[in-house]
């Protein structure tokens, strides 16, 4: 499988990444290279092997349901571009 320039544009749009025409081409080549690796992996016979959802074969550790965090809003908002009344401000988003 290999990606077209249109595929790359669509993926870039979904990822909210702006690509110049030159970047689109180099990205396409890189992505196709990665797809090549995946083709190699897919060629391996995995019949009878149970699929894994994670590279590490261990299970999720769970956390007790306790409130352990305190209010650090002032610290976090100190590095935010803009805040007001405790809110993070962002360019207006309207549906």
């Amino acid at each position, binding site marked *: 499988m290999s990606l077209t320039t249109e595929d790359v544009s669509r993926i870039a749009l979904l990822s909210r990444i702006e690509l110049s025409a030159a970047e689109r081409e180099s990205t396409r080549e890189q992505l196709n290279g990665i797809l090549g690796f995946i083709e190699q992996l897919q060629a391996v016979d995995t019949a009878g092997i149970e699929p894994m*959802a994670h590279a590490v074969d261990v299970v999720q550790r769970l956390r007790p349901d306790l409130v352990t965090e305190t209010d650090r809003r002032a610290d976090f908002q100190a590095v935010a571009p803009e805040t007001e009344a405790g*809110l993070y401000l962002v360019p207006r988003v309207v549906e």
Partner: protein
Amino acid sequence: MNWEVVIGLETHAQLQTKSKIFSGSSIAFGAEPNVQANAIDIALPGVLPVLNREAVVCAIKFGLAVGASIAPRSVFARKNYFYPDLPKGYQISQFEIPVVQGGGLAIRVGEQEKFVHLTRAHLEEDAGKSLHEDFHGKSGIDLNRAGTPLLEIVTEPDMRSSLEAVAYARALHALVQWIGICDGNMQEGSFRCDANVSVRPLGQKEFGTRREIKNLNSFRFMQQAIDYEVQWQINEITEGRAIRQATVLFDPDTGETRAMRSKEDAHDYRYFPDPDLLPLEIGADWIAEVNAGLPELPQVMQARFQAEYELSAYDAAILTASRAMADYYVAAVAIAGAANGKAVANWIMGELAARLNRNDMEVAASPISAAQLAGLIQRIADHTISNNIAKIVFEALWNGEGGGQANAADEIIEKQGLKQITDTGAIEKIIDEVLATNQKSVDEFRAGKEKAFNALVGQAMKATRGKANPQQVNDLLKKKLGG
């Protein structure tokens, strides 16, 4: 043409944990903006989510309550989309292998019973909130809600009317509160529904194209929105326009649904397993442990009420429609005795329900406690008072008379002298007086007018201020007139 409506519901139930699903922030409602949003919730670099055990317990409880299978191993996935109140650029959810699979819920519309199948229920995190007003052209973001644990419960497209959809939503709403996994507060957004609605000509096999009505936060709006949407779709098709898949919002002010955005791109969420989270393993022993802690489920309780108290299926369903209602009934029967189970049911669904309704109150807020109502019913059962007098006592109880204790009914009966007169001698004396002062009725009765008899019973009951046993009055009066 006849149309068939097809509805599937997706419900987000906020789980009743103390902390978030992947972090130790509080989820208490109503805090100052962003004071409950820590490094994990606002997605600072280098943080790792750690799953809250209690959220998983909630999912297991739900799965058991709807007869679903609990996945021995389920997987968290990233759902990718961009929105400012989603700080990571993805929502952690479950996709290919959700924790709860299958199961279903019995619903009732009038006397009709129906089973709604569930596709799945999966754990996920909530997003934050965007505020679009008052920030000089910008949007304000509050991330307190980001990371709040949700169980998204998805049905099969099994419902065929807005009434069925509402019946399902109500049953689900009652169930999640019943098993204690969600507070059901719709105003605060703890329980919100999306409805997938389509129509098709009756008899057609394929489903029509559906539109999804988002964020229905009351049962009334749900019904209005679906009814409007169905009519809109039928009109569109009738006028030759095809339905396009879309997300729509319901405007309670106009009663209309309106398309929000085209779904073409929105569906491309590019799900993939979240490498930050390992598979969730749930062993049989854990499920058994959670099962042991589950309360008696509504459908089990219904069957028990029918068997133990000889209630109809309808009555049993009403009495188990909410945990509060069932608790009230169980508490009242425990005092009044199993033999009075039917009487208790009748009083709750009759007199009490009418009173609560008229005052727009829930049973949990009833001014008459279960013990007080049971005390009243006991006095009817042991013939201390008649059914008619009981209504007077009920009124007094409702108004808080009788001292507020469990024996309030007794206090009222005693204080107002409402005890039924069962002494035959006393009643005979009253009847003699009635006969003496109502010669005209006596003559009419003797002349064959049956109605005159009823008038005499009425007079006798009036003379005892309703406290005589009507049957006894009847019998004695008959004896005297016949003699």
